[in-house]
């Protein structure tokens, strides 16, 4: 029986870290009591709805809402005139530099609509039925323009131009004319021409991926309540309420302190809820109407108007020797940004070859706008696309020289000291450890049957830290309140409470974690970047240490001995040595009880910009069966082997591995946006945008490998994002193994697979195995 957690050695026997506690927010979630974005209501609230462009690309000539305003029950209408005209480009919004010019235009169109679904106006009315009628009464005059969606088509010289001031950045000398390419960049290590010259053979392939949506089951939803004197309360589902607060304040021209946001429970985000859509509209409507306004996005609008990830074209060229040494890696990435600049192409470019120790690498990234919703982050943004392409070619290399794919990766594996293509030398990472663990699995040794194939792929994600503020207080009975600022998307409260309990040496259920609102804590960057357990955990540990220190100071005072003559251990404070005097140990409960009389409440307050996040490396191993008659690819068996640094709560780490794998399986086999000739989305529903369902998948086995991150008190590495990076490559490799055919375009949906098999059969392709 395989070990599910390959634990890192530790000289400490943890009491809580590494165990599987019941999450403190669990009962409310299994009883339906937890409040998500759309579950909150305010007395007298209005319903807000958005009018969206029916055209993929058009000039917005005129908006006349006068008839709508006359309809009984309509209390407010907002259009582009209600938002600050941001001309200047970048402003700080917490950790990110954002173009408010672009965000304001995405939230509400100004001179042009740039995608079907682009918001044009919003109304607030006393009922949904009236709001719907009101939308129909808003007169909008469009001048329809030709549109373009595909990234390669958008780069053609005669392509419809989205922004007439878009001059490609990163090109020297800058182009004289505007285009749909917002920027270009390259990452170079060594000299790839030399590397290719050293190779015994070179494999070159072009890949195409389709845009996919994060697919969170909970729609965007918020309730805004703005008083006549401009104090705004905002409730909503988000990955980062300080970020939303900042965006709303800037877009509306308000002081940040005027906006108080409470994050509801969140029903999935995956990066798609790190941006604003409804919130500024709801706030503007509430201010105008003088009443609370509730807005919930329909599933159709989510597909038409909220940000998916990029579709892309990726060209990969890799040179290798017959002994499996990879001599050079080159990639050209063309990523869709959607209607405004900013695809994750630079992160995709930097990650492409990151699992490998290469001397010569050149990756060029190009950011292309086209008439689709502005792309939003989707779990390891950019990396799944580029690594799918690279991992496919690595697989071809292994097949060509008949080398075991794990052995090939081990031979070229990045490790501590490897210089990454994006510059710095890597610290300790788990590429080799996870490869070795994969090789040792029973899965890897199992025989396959007819029409079956096995594939493996590696994945890398950097992980981030960021601004984190946490408060912890000792209650009068020795229990603890812990307020963190990163919304809990799946087990975070449990993990942070476990780290705090470990640090304090107290029972886990004596630490109560909650998510604070923007009034209650200093700035917290969002839950994303695989940062929450790492950063909020680090801050909680620091706050716990402050409490321990203060508890010791109080005890020392009570005993009249110097502060440093006192020790804290497992919730008890005792004199440090015989010299300190014979004082009975005092519990943290006692300290809590006496806190008021000994100086006041005992509170830990940690305010950090967490640094030292370390990458997580992982391997996905998958067996598939391909039905040549239907083209259906069935996932028979799946194992995720990934480095967590240290798994605080193994069940929730496993959950991240399994969830990322499932999303990747959907991306590989079924998910895509299907546009008609007018640039309108044909499959704007869960029926036709098919994400994996329970009957599509087998059990997803997981192995947690621990290569601790030296920069975190408990060795934590973020894990959420790496998990979605390998699946497409692994499945494409498995399908190649089963069929003998290499699929360079996603998704590998049944019609596409069947067509390829039929064509190969008709052509007498000797590679065909089914």
């Amino acid at each position, binding site marked *: 029986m395989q070990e599910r957690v390959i634990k890192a050695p530790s000289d400490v026997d943890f009491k809580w870290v590494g165990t599987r506690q019941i999450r403190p927010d669990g009962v409310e979630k299994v009883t339906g009591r937890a409040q998500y974005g759309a579950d909150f209501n305010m007395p007298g609230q209005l319903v807000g709805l958005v009018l969206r462009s029916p055209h993929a690309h058009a000039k917005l000539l005129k908006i006349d809402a006068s008839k709508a305003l006359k309809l009984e029950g309509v209390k407010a209408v907002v259009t582009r005139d209600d938002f600050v005209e941001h001309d200047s480009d970048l402003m700080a919004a917490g*950790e990110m530099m954002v173009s408010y010019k672009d965000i304001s235009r995405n939230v509400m169109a100004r001179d042009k609509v740039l995608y079907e679904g682009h918001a044009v106006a919003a109304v607030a009315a006393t009922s949904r039925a009236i709001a719907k009628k009101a939308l129909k009464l808003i007169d909008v005059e469009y001048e329809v323009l030709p549109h373009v969606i595909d990234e390669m088509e958008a780069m053609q010289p005669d392509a419809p131009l989205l922004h007439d001031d878009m001059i490609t950045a990163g090109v020297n000398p800058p182009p004289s004319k505007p285009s749909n390419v917002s920027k270009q960049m*390259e990452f170079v290590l060594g000299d790839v021409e030399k590397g290719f010259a050293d190779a015994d053979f070179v494999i070159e392939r072009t890949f195409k991926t389709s845009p996919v949506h*994060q697919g969170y089951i909970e729609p965007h939803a918020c309730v805004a309540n703005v008083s006549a004197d401009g104090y705004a309360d905002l409730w909503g589902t988000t990955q980062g309420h300080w970020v939303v607060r900042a965006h709303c304040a800037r877009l509306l021209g308000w002081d940040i302190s005027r906006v108080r946001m409470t994050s509801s429970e969140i029903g999935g985000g995956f990066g*798609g809820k790190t941006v604003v859509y409804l919130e500024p509209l709801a706030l503007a409507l509430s201010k105008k109407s003088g009443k609370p306004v509730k807005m919930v996005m329909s599933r159709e609008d989510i597909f038409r108007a909220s940000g998916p990830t990029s579709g892309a074209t990726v060209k990969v060229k890799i040179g290798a020797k017959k002994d499996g040494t990879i001599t050079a890696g080159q990639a050209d990435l063309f990523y869709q940004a959607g209607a405004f600049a900013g695809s994750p192409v630079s*992160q995709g470019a930097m990650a492409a070859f990151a699992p490998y120790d290469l001397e010569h690498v050149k990756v060029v990234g190009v950011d292309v706008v086209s008439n689709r919703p502005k792309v939003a*982050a989707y779990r390891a943004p950019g990396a799944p696309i580029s690594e799918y392409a690279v991992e496919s070619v690595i697989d071809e290399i292994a097949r060509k020289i008949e080398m075991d794919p794990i052995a090939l990766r081990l031979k070229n594996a990045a490790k501590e000291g490897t210089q990454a293509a994006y510059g710095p*030398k890597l610290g300790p990472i788990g590429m080799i450890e996870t490869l070795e663990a994969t090789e040792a699995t029973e899965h890897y040794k199992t025989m396959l049957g007819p029409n079956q194939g096995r594939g493996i792929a590696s994945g890398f994600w*950097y992980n981030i830290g960021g601004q984190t503020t946490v408060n912890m207080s000792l209650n009068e009975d020795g229990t603890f309140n812990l307020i963190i600022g990163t919304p809990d998307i799946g087990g975070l409260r449990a993990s942070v409470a476990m780290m705090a309990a470990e640090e304090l040496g107290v029972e886990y259920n004596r630490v109560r974690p909650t998510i604070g609102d923007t009034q209650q804590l200093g700035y917290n960057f969002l839950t994303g970047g695989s940062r929450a357990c790492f950063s909020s955990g680090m801050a909680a540990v620091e706050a716990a240490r402050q409490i321990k220190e203060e508890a010791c100071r109080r005890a020392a005072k009570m005993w009249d001995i110097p502060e440093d003559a006192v020790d804290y251990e497992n919730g008890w404070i005792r004199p440090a040595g015989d010299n300190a005097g014979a004082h009975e140990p005092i519990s943290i409960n006692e300290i809590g009880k006496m806190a008021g009389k000994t100086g006041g409440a005992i509170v830990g307050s940690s305010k950090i*910009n967490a640094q*030292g996040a370390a990458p997580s490396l992982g391997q996905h191993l998958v067996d598939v069966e391909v039905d040549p008659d239907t083209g259906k690819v069935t996932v028979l068996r799946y194992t995720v082997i990934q480095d967590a640094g240290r798994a605080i709560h193994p069940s929730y780490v496993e959950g991240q591995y399994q969830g990322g794998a499932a999303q990747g399986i959907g991306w590989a086999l079924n998910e895509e946006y299907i546009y008609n000739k007018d640039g309108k989305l044909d499959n704007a529903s869960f029926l036709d945008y098919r994400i994996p369902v329970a009957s599509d998948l087998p059990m997803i086995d997981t192995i947690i490998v621990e290569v601790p991150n030296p920069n975190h008190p408990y060795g934590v590495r973020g894990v959420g994002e790496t998990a979605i990076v390998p699946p497409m490559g692994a499945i494409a490799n498995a399908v190649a193994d089963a069929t003998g055919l290499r699929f360079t375009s996603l998704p590998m949906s049944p019609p596409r697979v069947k067509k390829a098999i039929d064509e190969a059969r008709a052509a007498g392709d000797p590679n065909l195995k089914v």
Partner: protein
Amino acid sequence: MAHVTLVGNLRQFADGIGELEVEATNIRQLFAKLSERFPALAPHLEDGMAVAIDGEIYQEALFQTIKDDAVVHILPAIPGG
């Protein structure tokens, strides 16, 4: 003296120079000196750059110490999803 590499296409804004020596004891100083020497680089340094110092990546850490002889890379910031 830090050994600085400008990753990606940052070198375009530094007159094509990709590697250089800079006297700086923290990231803020590093950015200030680079901006002074290459004004075209300044807005990009504001633009969300991560800085790797001897392999450790720092984002938004203006006062992070840069020791003498450190190997420094300036690269695009990593957001998350």
